[in-house]
């Protein structure tokens, strides 16, 4: 058994070796003439500005957390799958209960709209007598997640 | 009977609480009626009291006994059963105190008539306080004793803290903390006693730990291996000391006295009366009821110690009183001095001294009540208590002066008034046991005479300052509160046997019990 795991290790090693080898070969073949322009970060030809390590929409974290929960649940289902046919109805019932409980939580998330990817709300300019055109921000609703914390607006939006 | 006298103020309290806020007079009258009933009950008790019965550690010779199981837990035999009794009883030790409490409580209500602030809360707390005090004097189960003891704390805190003088908060919390420290010490000792004492039930034959004070007095009831079992052991001394500190704080004896002047000065007049008249007696009573009979060996061991503390209290209190500018503070310190006499008397371990001590407790309660009331009379009119602010009151308020002077003279120990009798007995008893200490202590009497005469001179004699020309003499209500006390002062001065006969046999029994501790 341990030897089988050894094989997996060898696979990993072979994979790494392959990459190393091809990069090595490339190193011998390729030119190496860097200059500042070449080494600059690519931003569609513009001079790069600021750091790229910007903050992201909370959505991504929520997805991550949700994924974590589901992965963990699946982790529990794996052993169950293995013994399911041996144990029979009892195992089935247990799984049903388990999946049901997770599902209820999931249904809550869905029902509350926590998994909706929020789309930008158009700000409609209105005309106010004597003031002119104002861009009225929507009333701040309590977002299901904490307020977005974007410093640079990099929220992936549809075109 | 005893339950009634203890719990009737609670009924009164409930009544007061149920009354609407506006009916202030109804509240006052309720309190007066309730305490009046107490006085009547005390009178009945006095009438039907059998003077020959000893009491103390003998259940047959206790009177008005009410005894039944209150809390019994016998599910698991870890330490036998848990047994807490509802056990009230009366003997020579407590009869005077009960009468005193009833009387002073009534007088207190009369003198609180002019309380204006939050009348409802005041009388509710006042009546609760009275229940606590009365309960302590009649409880014969340590647990019950402790509960009543602690019940007094909170009402007192608020009574001083809300209705007191300018520094009331400080005084109240000081009083509270001091007494609470003592309470904790007593609690721990009580627990240690509880686990050391097991009473064998005569009916079932099983051995039961008990809080019953009478059972604790019997050396045979101490179980083997208990913390306080044995005779003359260190733990017994420690336990005695813990209890003594608790009671000494209440009395108060010299190093534990500092709360007293603050509390007295800040408390409103009726509360001062209760405080000095009754509350201080609790300490000495506790010593006699708990320390002396339960731990006689330790009591004898610490005899000199008590006597010396008594001596210091007498002289120190008197000297401090002499230095006061404030009338109320002066009386407060004089209380320390007088309670020192009590300690000295009961530390003598002979019947004379004991009788002197107990009688002094009663007498001082009455005298000091008169004194505080007279301060109150003055303060109500003049709104100052400075001794130097007054003068010539004898001319301005002659009747008041007469009454106050009787109180003053009684405090001084003038023959013919009650103070003389008890002090005499105390010193006589003490002289047999501690000669030199007594001799030194007697000088305290001289100092007392000095400051009292000086006070009389400063307040009542001389010229009336212009600003006091308007002062009126006593009102009817003040008469009602003062006159009965004055009558008692004189009556007991002339015919002390009225009181002595009540307590004599009990105290002889107690002395015997203590002498057994020396064996």
């Amino acid at each position, binding site marked *: 058994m341990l030897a089988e795991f050894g094989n997996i290790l060898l*696979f*990993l090693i072979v994979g790494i070796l392959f*990459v190393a080898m091809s*990069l090595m070969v490339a190193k011998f073949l390729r030119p190496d003439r860097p200059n500042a322009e070449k080494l600059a970060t*690519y931003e569609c030809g513009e001079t790069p500005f600021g750091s790229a390590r910007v903050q992201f929409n909370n959505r991504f974290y929520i997805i991550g957390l949700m994924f974590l929960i589901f992965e963990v649940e699946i982790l529990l289902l794996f052993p169950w799958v293995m013994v399911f046919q041996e144990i029979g109805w009892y195992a*089935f019932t247990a799984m049903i209960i388990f*999946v049901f409980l997770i599902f209820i939580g999931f249904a809550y998330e869905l029902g509350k709209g926590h998994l909706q990817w929020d789309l930008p709300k158009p700000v409609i300019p209105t005309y106010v007598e004597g003031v002119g055109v104002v861009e009225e921000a929507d009333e701040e609703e309590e977002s299901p997640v904490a307020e977005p914390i974007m410093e640079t607006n990099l929220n*992936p939006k549809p075109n | 009977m005893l339950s009634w006298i203890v719990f009737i103020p609670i009924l009164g309290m409930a009544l007061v609480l149920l009354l609407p806020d506006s009916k202030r007079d109804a509240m006052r009258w309720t309190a007066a009626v309730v305490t009046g009933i107490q006085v009547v009950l005390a009178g009945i008790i006095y009438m039907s009291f059998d003077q020959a019965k000893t009491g103390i550690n003998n259940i047959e010779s206790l009177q008005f006994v009410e005894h039944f199981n209150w809390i019994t837990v016998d599910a698991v035999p870890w330490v036998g059963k848990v047994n807490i009794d509802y056990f009230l009883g009366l003997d020579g030790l407590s009869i005077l105190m009960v009468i005193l409490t009833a009387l002073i409580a009534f007088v207190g209500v009369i003198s609180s008539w002019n309380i204006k602030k939050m009348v409802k809360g005041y009388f509710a707390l006042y009546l609760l306080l009275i229940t606590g005090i009365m309960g302590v004097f009649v409880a014969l189960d340590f647990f019950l004793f402790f509960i009543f003891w602690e019940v007094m704390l909170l009402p007192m805190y608020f009574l001083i803290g809300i209705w007191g003088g300018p520094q009331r908060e400080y005084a109240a919390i000081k009083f509270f903390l001091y007494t609470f420290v003592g309470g904790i010490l007593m609690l721990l000792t009580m627990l240690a006693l509880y686990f050391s004492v097991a009473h064998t039930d005569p009916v079932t034959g099983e051995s039961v730990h008990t809080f019953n004070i009478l059972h604790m007095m019997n050396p045979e009831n101490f179980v083997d291996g208990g913390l306080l079992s044995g005779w003359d052991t260190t733990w017994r001394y420690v336990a005695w000391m813990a209890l003594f500190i608790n009671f000494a704080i209440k009395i108060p004896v010299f190093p534990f006295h500092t709360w007293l002047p603050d509390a007295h000065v800040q408390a409103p007049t009726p509360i001062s009366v209760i405080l000095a008249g009754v509350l201080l007696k609790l300490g000495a009573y506790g010593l006699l009821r708990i320390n002396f009979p339960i731990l006689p060996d330790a009591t004898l061991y610490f005899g000199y110690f008590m006597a010396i503390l008594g001596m210091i209290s007498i002289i120190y209190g008197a000297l401090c009183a002499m230095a006061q500018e404030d009338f109320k503070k002066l009386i407060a310190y004089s209380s320390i001095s007088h309670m020192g006499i009590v300690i000295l008397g009961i530390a003598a371990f002979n019947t004379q001294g004991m009788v002197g001590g107990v009688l002094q407790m009663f007498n001082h309660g009455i005298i000091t009540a008169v004194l505080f009331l007279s301060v109150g009379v003055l303060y109500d009119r003049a709104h100052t208590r400075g001794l130097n602010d007054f003068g010539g009151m004898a001319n301005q308020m002659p009747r008041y002066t007469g009454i106050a002077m009787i109180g003053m003279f009684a405090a001084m120990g003038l023959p013919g008034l009650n103070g003389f009798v008890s002090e005499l007995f105390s010193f006589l008893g003490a002289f047999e046991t501690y000669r030199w200490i007594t001799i030194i202590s007697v000088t305290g009497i001289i100092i007392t005479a000095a400051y009292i005469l000086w006070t009389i001179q400063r307040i009542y004699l001389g010229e009336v300052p212009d600003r006091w020309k308007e002062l009126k003499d006593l009102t009817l209500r003040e008469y009602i509160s003062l006159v009965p006390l004055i009558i008692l002062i004189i009556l007991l001065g002339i015919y002390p046997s009225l009181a002595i006969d009540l307590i004599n046999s009990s105290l002889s029994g107690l002395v015997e019990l203590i002498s057994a501790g020396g064996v």
Partner: protein
Amino acid sequence: MLNTLENIIPSPVIALLIFVALPLVLVSIYALFAIWMERKVAAHIQDRLGPMRVGGWHGWAQTIADMLKLLQKEDIIPTNASRFLFKLAPFLLFAASYAAFSVIPFSSAYIGSSVDIGVFYLLAITSLLTLSVLMGAWASNNKWSLLGGMRTAAQMVSYEVPTIMSVLSVLVVAGSLNLMTVTEMQTGNTTLGFLPDWLIFQNPFLLIAFVIFFISIVAESHRVPFDLPESESELVAGFQTEYSGMRWGIFMLAEYADMLLLSLLGSVLFFGGWNSPFGEFMAGPIWGFFWFILKGMVLVFVMMWMRWTLPRYRVDQLMQICWGFLIPISFVNFVLIALWEMIF
């Protein structure tokens, strides 16, 4: 297989190395072929011819030429990048992708490592792909890259849930995590009397499971219509923006390897792996390899087909499909499959 190798080759160590390197040959050849094929498929779908010059017949050597070009290209690491992570990412990506092949039974005679936790291991190690993509993206210190990386991560982790749930559905029926065992279960020709005994035919709900599985693996290997991470028109190739030369080639290679891996997994789980569709006819280790690769390639072809047929989803639609649609269905389906198993 290993024994045979050991017999041929004198040194056992070398034999072992050859043994574990065999899939590499397959993967490389496949990658070269698939890239060429993709171009051809694309061209033909769009009524073009695609690369025609290099090599000869339909420009079959085009990808080889591309590879040679890649090898000669300058390797640029931007100044702002985190050099270590930047270099590490391709290694991790390919090694993880390749290590996953170790539990795939290529034929009845060849499986790299027949550990009992095969599928579990496979799913676990493919999670490293997400990590390495994100690593490369972050290390590039480029806004496009990071954005692409984040999208990739979000997409891959989201779709991992329905993938695994549909895999689990199969495993409920199969009762083993070892893919070799799973394949062996599907030998025979009994279902309904005429169909091959493949799992997809054994249980009606497994058909649904397969659909979910297929959709999910398309998204997992971020191909159209789920190719948002590298959508060239908006993100300039996403997480790969800063990679060039052979490093980029490795990324490409790994991506194709991933696609193959998931297709092969699908063929094992649903289509009988190396089993012949005709029962005993054309069975055996060599034929098994042929069938297996064929099934895998069919799935790959379908993916390519989709690429040139369907438009790209929006990011919110992408997530909605996964969380609002695939995951609930996969759960219900999972329960139903278990129920079916219990009853029949």
